[in-house]
């Protein structure tokens, strides 16, 4: 039992990363019918932005001789600042890479996304070199053992922050007029301008939200695995993309749940089989899910949306 619960805890942590990233894929797809294949690299950018914000903040504290804030306060501030900065990166990606292609065939946008991803990876490599950066440790690990299950304060924090952000996103989408405009665009893109809603602003907002969440995931990931490298977003990003698909393209709830589902499948496959088989078996399971539910769990068969 304890062994099982231990793996549930591990799965929740892995799922938190996938879910946060999957939300960005899913929202952008829902609103713009576009897979942003650079999204995994936005996660990487978020982690690096977090790194620089943290280092900068620590430097500032030490040079000015300020009283250091508690580590967790710094971490929360770092997450918020990095989310904001990375949101702007996402907006820039939309503005430069995708907006000029609004009327172009779908494939052009997909290829553009892949290229932007490569530019972000190799640009990072060119700027920062091949040395791997190590994310500063802001909070000391404290370990708790509850009924044979080992928890750390970091794990609890990671899952907690992820859930909090998802809840905040849900509230935003359901309760604000911007969220309403996003839902309207997902339903029928063509008539939204007739409501006096500027499409480009909503598109930018969608990218900003998705990128902000990816940045949060990047920093949380760095808290768990503190070594950064320019390619860290690739595998995680593709897995989150898969989660967005099984959740149902465009479904926020689906993306979040499927992110966690993917975490569970992965962890438990590794428990039962040799860990080298993990991805092989996990993705075979996902392939089966898609054969039986081609639109994912919460997706609707997409009606081809009309333009006016």
């Amino acid at each position: 039992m304890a062994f099982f619960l231990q793996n549930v805890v591990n799965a929740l942590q892995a799922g938190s990363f996938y879910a946060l990233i999957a939300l960005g894929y899913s929202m952008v797809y829902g609103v713009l019918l576009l897979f942003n294949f650079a999204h995994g690299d936005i996660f990487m950018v978020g982690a690096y932005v977090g790194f620089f914000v943290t280092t900068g903040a620590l430097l500032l504290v030490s040079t000015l001789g300020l009283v250091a804030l508690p580590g967790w306060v710094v971490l929360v501030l770092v997450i918020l600042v990095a989310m904001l900065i990375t949101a702007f990166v996402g907006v820039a990606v939309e503005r430069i890479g995708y907006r000029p292609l609004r009327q172009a065939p779908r494939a052009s946008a997909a290829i553009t996304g892949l290229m932007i991803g490569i530019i972000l990876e190799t640009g990072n490599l060119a700027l920062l070199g091949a040395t791997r950066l190590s994310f500063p440790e802001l909070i000391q690990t404290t370990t708790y053992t509850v009924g044979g299950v080992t928890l750390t304060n970091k794990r609890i924090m990671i899952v907690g922050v992820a859930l909090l952000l998802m809840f905040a996103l849900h509230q935003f989408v359901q309760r604000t007029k911007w969220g309403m405009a996003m839902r309207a665009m997902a339903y029928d893109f063509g008539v939204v301008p007739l409501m006096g809603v500027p499409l480009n602003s909503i598109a930018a907002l969608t990218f900003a939200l998705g990128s902000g969440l990816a940045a949060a995931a990047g920093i949380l990931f760095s808290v768990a695995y503190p070594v950064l490298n320019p390619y860290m977003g690739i595998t995680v990003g593709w897995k989150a993309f898969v989660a967005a698909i099984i959740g149902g393209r465009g479904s926020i709830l689906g993306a979040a749940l499927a992110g966690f589902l993917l975490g569970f499948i992965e962890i438990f496959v590794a428990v039962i089989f040799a860990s080298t088989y993990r991805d092989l078996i996990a993705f075979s399971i996902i392939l089966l899910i898609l054969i039986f539910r081609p639109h994912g769990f919460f997706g609707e068969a997409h009606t081809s949306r009309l333009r006016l």
Partner: protein
Amino acid sequence: MLLSVENLCVSYDKIRALHNFSFHIDEGEIVCIIGANGAGKSTTLRAISRMVPVEAGSKLEFMDHNLLDYAADKVVSQLGISHVPEGRRIFGNMTVMENLKLATFSRKDPDQIERDLGRVFAIFPRLEERKTQKAGTMSGGEQQMLAVGRAFMSGRRIMLLDEPSMGLAPLLMQSMFDALKQINEEGTAILLVEQNARMALKFAQRGYVLETGNLVLEGDSKDLLGNPEVKKAYLGG
């Protein structure tokens, strides 16, 4: 003159949908455009709303503003031109109230929004009863009311209506036109596009007849209703 359109030309890919169409609407007027399927009626409304590009030489003016300087959302939010699109196109995934609220996205006059909402509910009491219902689960007639209510909320200088009677039973159709009359009497000009020519001409003061993208007749509704050509082609003899 409220809206003046001169030499409007629109093409889709290589198909000419409108060819040098000129017309105008005065303040407070009700004007209709009639014509058969594919005549270019919806295209005319889309051009005014800046939803389709127009060809060089087309002139669209609204109260001394060049419409071509405005993006589609600004036509609604800054000029007050609202558009009930063909086929209703309400947001079925959102509630009735959310549909009405979304139409006020760029408005910054909360008090007037409240009053307008009150007007919409007074004109269409059914919408108030169904406030929290998902719009997609309403009947066709109710959805049509919502489409008109939504346009009312988005802008009030002029309303472009694309076949508001489509799919409505005769009784409901009559009450829809009564509602539109009320909206008009409160100062909103109406540009109505209809296949149901008799209904449209009875409702409007003036009319234009389009045939495959070309203007073939224009005049007072009374005259058009009596015109033998119109009778033969659009009024069933």
